[in-house]
């Protein structure tokens, strides 16, 4: 009996095989290649272009003494925490929560509006955000109509602008995840809590949030990983400037690898980005495990 059960369990894994193979081919292979390249002096042009040499940890040593690097790590963390963990995540939860209570047409309109930003290709969304925040842009025209003086947002507050743009663009994802999660919360439990005299706030903290905890962790993981890799949005809006004030790790890696042709150094930065993703990822996995206890 037990044997047959294990065979059946193994057979159940069969449908997963193609996707695992695809993942290995398209995800693991480039990651491994990138790790390998980060230990070489591979370049786009010049002597090292075709016959790169193994240089060991040289690129990483150089990274540690590069003043642009710690700044980029800090900006990346600020960008991820502000726009994904706080912005997209909380706003997504809030909108999803309000939508479950709102009337159908209202929630449909809100849902469409939010999802519209998400459906736009990243490059289009980036140009839209640029047009919105630039000096003669929509935001300043609106402010001007209201009699308020705008600022040159992309120049004076580049990080604020890209964080807001990323929240605008990505909130729909969190909203969809939380809509699904909230719909799965059994009604009778919160009704029972209501009978016991729990306030709305208490029901949220003690009933709803614990019940959707795994959705929260999954969502946090996905939006974090997506946001860590955001490049187009920042590149189009500020190109990492002014004076590196919005240069996150992907922007820095791109500059080093493709603008200066230093593939080895660029991939070393990308490798740090992967490690950063792993750190966030492990944190969320812990959160998920805590749920099962």
């Amino acid at each position, binding site marked *: 009996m037990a044997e047959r059960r294990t065979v059946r369990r193994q057979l159940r894994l069969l449908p997963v095989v193609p996707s695992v193979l695809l993942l290995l081919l398209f*995800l693991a292979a*480039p990651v491994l290649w990138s790790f390998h390249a980060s230990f070489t002096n591979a370049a*786009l*042009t010049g*002597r090292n272009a075709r016959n790169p040499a193994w240089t060991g940890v040289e690129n990483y040593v150089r990274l540690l003494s590069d003043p642009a690097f710690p700044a980029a790590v800090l900006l990346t963390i600020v960008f991820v925490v502000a726009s994904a963990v706080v912005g997209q995540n909380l706003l997504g939860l809030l909108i999803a929560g309000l939508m479950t209570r709102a009337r159908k047409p209202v929630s449909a309109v809100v849902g469409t509006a939010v999802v519209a930003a998400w459906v736009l290709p990243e490059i289009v969304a980036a140009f839209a955000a640029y047009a919105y925040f630039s000096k003669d842009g929509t935001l300043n025209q609106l402010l001007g109509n209201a009699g308020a003086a705008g600022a*040159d947002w992309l120049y004076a507050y580049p990080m604020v602008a890209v964080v807001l743009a990323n929240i605008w663009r990505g909130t729909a994802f969190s909203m969809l995840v939380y809509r*699904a999660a909230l719909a799965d919360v059994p009604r009778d439990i919160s009704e029972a809590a209501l009978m016991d005299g729990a306030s709305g706030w208490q029901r949220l903290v003690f009933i709803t949030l614990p019940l959707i905890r795994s959705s929260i962790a999954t969502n946090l993981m996905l939006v974090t990983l*997506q946001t860590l890799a955001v490049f187009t949005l920042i590149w189009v809006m500020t190109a990492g400037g002014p*004076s590196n004030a919005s240069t996150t790790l992907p922007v820095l890696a791109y500059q080093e690898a493709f603008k*200066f042709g230093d593939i080895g150094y660029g991939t070393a930065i990308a490798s740090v980005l992967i490690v950063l993703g792993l750190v966030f990822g492990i944190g969320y996995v812990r959160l998920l495990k805590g749920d099962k206890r």
Partner: protein
Amino acid sequence: MHRPAKILAALMSAAALLATSACSAEKPAAEDRTLKIVYQKTDSFSALDTLFKDAKKDFEAANQGTKVELQPIEANDDDYGTKLALALRSSETAPDVFYEDTFKVRSDVDAGYLLKLDGYLEKWDDWKLYNEAAKAAGTGDDGGIYAVPLGTDTRAIWYNKKVLQKAGISVPWQPRSWDEILEAARKMKAADPSLVPFNMYAGKATGEGTVMQSFYELLYGTDSELYDQQEKKWVIGSRGFTDSLAFLKTLYDEGLAVTPAEALDANVWKKVFGEWLPKGKMGATVEGSYTPSFWQKGGNYEWAGYAEDMGVAKFPTQRGQEPGGVSMSGGWTLAVGADSKNPDLAFKFLSEAVSKKNSLAFTVSGSQIAVRTDVAAEAEYLAANPFVKDVSELVSVTHYRPATADYPRISAAVQEATEAVITGALSPQEAAAQYDKTVRDQVGDAKVLQK
């Protein structure tokens, strides 16, 4: 209803992750007698596209059984360079003939991307018609020639005569020193405070434009230099470098140039050509010899009155010292890929592309400075726009960038120094010191010369 939504969301995010991480490689053309041609094409630059289309038609007609496959890359200069380098990295994707920036020739020769053309050029009669400076642009470190120049350019001061006259400055205007530029700019500002009197690019957003159309005009007009050709070392700690930064600081601090925020917008040049100069909102700017191509019929910012309203002046040296002016030149070439399976055919196509007929058409429509003496003597070339003669003469005071593999980093460090100065983040002395440190870190002490 909600479960499928959740699954869909998960699937889509997985697909997005896959799509961003998967890298695509183009399949090589299997056919033997197919030539692959890679070049740049943008909305404002289609002269090259025309040239290659014409060359393809003639070449295919004259060489039955040979196919020419044009692969234009739609990108700006930076991105074009990156895409080309990525294609050249593998012999599978490398083109047979491609459009190559002069300042990348040496490092790409080092990388083994370019085929040495000496043997072909000896047998090609037209080669004798190229001027010597242009021939040098395609020369590698070993003295061999690896690329055939298509055209070159120079930089000058372009000024709006009406704006200057309104400020009481007589035209034609030719400043003799940096001080005379400031003097004129202050007069214009006094006459109309809403003007941008004298613009020079700064900061990283305008990229090579910042150094080619601004900083090097200053630096090469001092007694200092960026790179010592004899010693093959980068110069740091020079007086001229700090002076040049200080000049930019004066321009920006006194509001004589655009605002720092405008300078750090990568699209600022569009406003210079499309708005400020034609509308008389800007006195002068430092720009390339290709400037009229924007205003000519069919250009991006057609302006019929430009020939009458605009004037051109030589950029002066710091204190009017010899040779009295400064210009910078770049330009582009055509090269044959080192891995080409049909090098003979590839060169044949290249020589067809730069024939007198094609060169003339390209030089005129692209507002280039001719590199072939037979093209330079053509009436059609001289009549292409009213400024051809003025900007062609600047070749006598022009400089070329040090085309080493380190150059892109040095250029970026210079751009960063100008950005720090115009935004007030650092003083000219501090920014120069930071530049010195960056150069030392990037190229190593052995390749640095303290002056």
